[in-house]
């Protein structure tokens, strides 16, 4: 499992983010990107020594400033579900493509090029209809 998939799954959940300078930010994750840049809402910022606090409605944190993120334990199980679902989807797609549908189409359609490869939906829906 990738750390950033876990982070993406944690969207809309509360978390604690500690920065390299020791400040911590408590809030709900709104959004994150490939660089771990994150958007938090309803944030409480705590100073390095834990003696000063600031509240802010939202904030944006540059990924490279982050030391670690503490997220709720149950999030890790939600990622698993996502992954299983995606794998199942991929497998069922594969099954469909390999079936009789494709063989029926093989004749004249292959001349049209490889346009349909890999895609869930054929680019030319007519091509499918014709073969049936």
């Amino acid at each position, binding site marked *: *499992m990738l*750390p950033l998939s*876990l982070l993406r799954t944690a969207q809309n959940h509360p978390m604690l983010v500690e920065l390299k300078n020791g400040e911590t930010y408590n809030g709900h994750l709104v959004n994150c990107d490939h660089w*771990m840049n994150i958007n938090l809402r309803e944030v409480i910022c705590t100073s390095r020594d834990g003696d000063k606090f600031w509240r802010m409605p939202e904030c944006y944190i540059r990924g490279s400033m982050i*030391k*670690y993120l503490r*997220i709720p334990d149950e999030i890790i199980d939600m990622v698993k579900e996502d992954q299983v679902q995606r794998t199942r989807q991929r497998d069922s797609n594969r099954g469909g493509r390999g079936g009789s549908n494709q063989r029926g189409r093989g004749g004249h359609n292959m001349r049209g090029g490889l346009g349909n490869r890999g895609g869930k939906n054929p680019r030319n829906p007519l091509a499918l209809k014709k073969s049936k």
Partner: protein
Amino acid sequence: MAAGLESYVNRVVSIITADGRNFVGTLKGFDQTINIILDDSHERVYSPTAGVEQVVLGLHIIRGDNIVVVGELDEAVDSRLDLTSLRAEPLSQIVH
């Protein structure tokens, strides 16, 4: 071994970070920048005057920038340690 961290996945690991802290938990995942998912984690706080304090933390994503050492923990050896009687200076942080 050659697979890097792959062989540590779902094992208990001990991680030392650039600020001198020690985290112990189950390695659930990592990426090319050594960002790490640590599940069921706790921090071990060392002190020269008191036993090792274990702070329960739960699920963590530790950013790769901040990671110095990842090592597999021998749970058999670790469970024989008496952490309450262990005294140690805490590690100092890396100064750039």
